């Protein structure tokens, strides 16, 4: 067991190291941020001073070593535009993104699983066909387009909900979140639903497939033969078996939600780290881009690592297979 975890940890750190290499060298080939940040009428001395201040005059491998050394201490450089540490800026914007992603995940589970359950139990009903058609649309429609339509319908035409920004926040149990105020809730509803749409479709499909498979299994037939009510068969026996894969996949999708929030945040002007990234790309603010990419890679690696470990505890075959390979 511990061998398995150590192997996975080594693999994960290798991935992070490789990504740091790719990201750093990649970003340093793009453009010359010096000319993005210094006004055209600055004199040569000013330019030189800025270059020296940002460490852009050193050889690139030295810059990388400096970067690694800094990253080790949690210092990923200062933002060219804001002049603040990049990591602190990102961490400052992270709660808004996490709040959005968590709300979207909750929506996906609360909306998607019941719909999928219904479609799986009554596959030939018109309602089920409607649900499945809806889930195909959910997969096909580009997120940004749905977001635009939400803004147009609910904010411009109907005027029910605000279309931009994060609302008031309140602190509850030590967590500051806009989920605890009415204004905050009205602000988060549209972006969270927009972000959740793809995952709702996914939850519908997973649950439906699981239910259809489970309903034909011997244990369901046996439970029927014992005279257990249909309600109990579905809610206890079937749900128990299909929830494990569904919840696992949805958990894995949390990383995707954080990554996709880049799009939603840009549309709804949600002040999260995704919007920060897009602004940084447009302004060639390299430290922010590098820091964001490193954090998102770390995020994914940690999520995958946790899922791997939990899986190997639940299912010993995974870890035996790994040792054989």
């Amino acid at each position: 067991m511990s061998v398995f975890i150590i192997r996975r940890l080594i693999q994960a750190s290798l991935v992070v190291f490789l990504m740091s290499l790719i990201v750093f060298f990649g970003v340093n080939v793009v453009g010359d941020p010096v000319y993005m940040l210094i006004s055209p009428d600055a004199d040569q001395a000013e330019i030189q001073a800025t270059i020296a201040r940002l460490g852009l005059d050193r050889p690139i491998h030295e810059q990388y070593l400096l970067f690694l050394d800094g990253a080790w201490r949690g210092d990923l450089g200062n933002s060219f535009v804001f002049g603040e540490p990049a990591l602190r800026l990102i961490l400052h914007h992270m709660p808004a993104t996490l709040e959005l992603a968590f709300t979207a995940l909750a929506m996906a589970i609360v909306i998607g699983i019941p719909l999928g359950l219904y479609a799986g139990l009554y596959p030939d009903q018109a309602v089920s066909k409607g649900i499945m058609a809806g889930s195909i649309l959910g997969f096909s429609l580009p997120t940004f387009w749905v977001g635009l339509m939400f803004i147009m319908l609910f904010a411009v035409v109907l005027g029910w909900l605000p279309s931009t920004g994060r609302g008031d926040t309140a602190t509850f149990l030590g967590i500051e979140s806009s989920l605890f105020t009415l204004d905050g809730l009205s602000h988060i509803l549209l972006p969270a639903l927009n972000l959740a749409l793809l995952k709702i479709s996914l939850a519908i499909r997973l649950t439906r497939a699981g239910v259809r498979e489970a309903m034909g299994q011997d244990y369901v037939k046996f439970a029927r033969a014992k005279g257990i009510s249909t309600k109990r068969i579905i809610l206890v026996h079937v749900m128990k078996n299909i929830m494990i894969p569904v919840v696992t996949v949805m958990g894995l999708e949390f990383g995707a939600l954080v990554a996709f929030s880049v799009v939603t945040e840009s549309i709804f002007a949600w002040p999260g780290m995704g919007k920060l990234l897009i602004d940084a790309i447009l302004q060639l603010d390299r430290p922010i881009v590098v820091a964001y990419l490193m954090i998102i890679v770390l995020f994914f690696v940690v999520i995958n690592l946790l899922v791997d470990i939990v899986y190997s505890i639940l299912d010993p075959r995974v870890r035996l297979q790994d040792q054989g390979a």
Partner: protein
Amino acid sequence: MSDATAEAAPPEATIQPVDAETPFQRFVSEFLDSKVATAAFLFLLAIIALAIFAPWITPQNPYDLAQVDVLDGRLAPGSEAFAGYTMWLGSDGAGRDLYSAILYGLRISLSVGVTSGLIALVIGMAVGLLAAYTGGRTENVIMRIVDLQLSFPAALVALMLIAILGKGVDKIILALVVAQWAYYARTVRASALVERHKEYVEAAACLGISHARIVFRHIMPNCLAPLIVVGTVQTASAISLEATLSFLGVGMPQTSPSLGVLIANGFEYMLSGRYWISVFPGVALLVTVVSINLVGDHLRDVLNPRLNTGGGK
């Protein structure tokens, strides 16, 4: 919908002599069984035709400055342009006829999506075949990389690359290729692995046929069906991914206005009620992506024999 197909299906089945069908004919008739997929396919053909013939069927070339009049800017759908023709879909902020702009945008969106899809397909197929045929250490290394990449969503991979590479048509195509090749590689490797252990491959090897010939003439053709399915779906997602990146302002440049760029340009007018500048290019994008997905979804049902025997209603 299901009632209509049930009524239409029996007469066809009785007319067609079963033994005289070639596999391709069977494929076509099975495909046409689904009214939705057939309609989607016709839509798709129409969209491709509109994109190809755009210069001949639009009233103006929206990127020829001599033909665009700023005074026509932000006209509502159905207004008459200064040059005399009717702008059925209205005009954008710079006075371009939206109908023309959309058809020209479709050209760009489709060609970027298809080009990157094809390149990713070729690379993914080569890598997948190599992994399945050589096996051992090579396969292990290749599949590790594929698995690693597939643990990140394609959109994130593309966005990371764009963050690193910057804007530009070539960079978008590169980002889309890198984001997608792994899907093809995984598909091809899975089906090539099955084919490799079949008797006909062993027989071919016994006959002393070269490895290259076995891979390309014997194994590859048998892996094409799943590849086509993945190819359609991936092309749709490439088009929508490009539109997303362009909408965010990190995709196609203003000089190559794909549908995503058009939608982004209209965004600022939307809150003031001039919905058409964003909505109509969006509808074009939507119809394209949904049509491709519906065709791909049905192709999967038709081309996958396992599903047909199972719950293939």
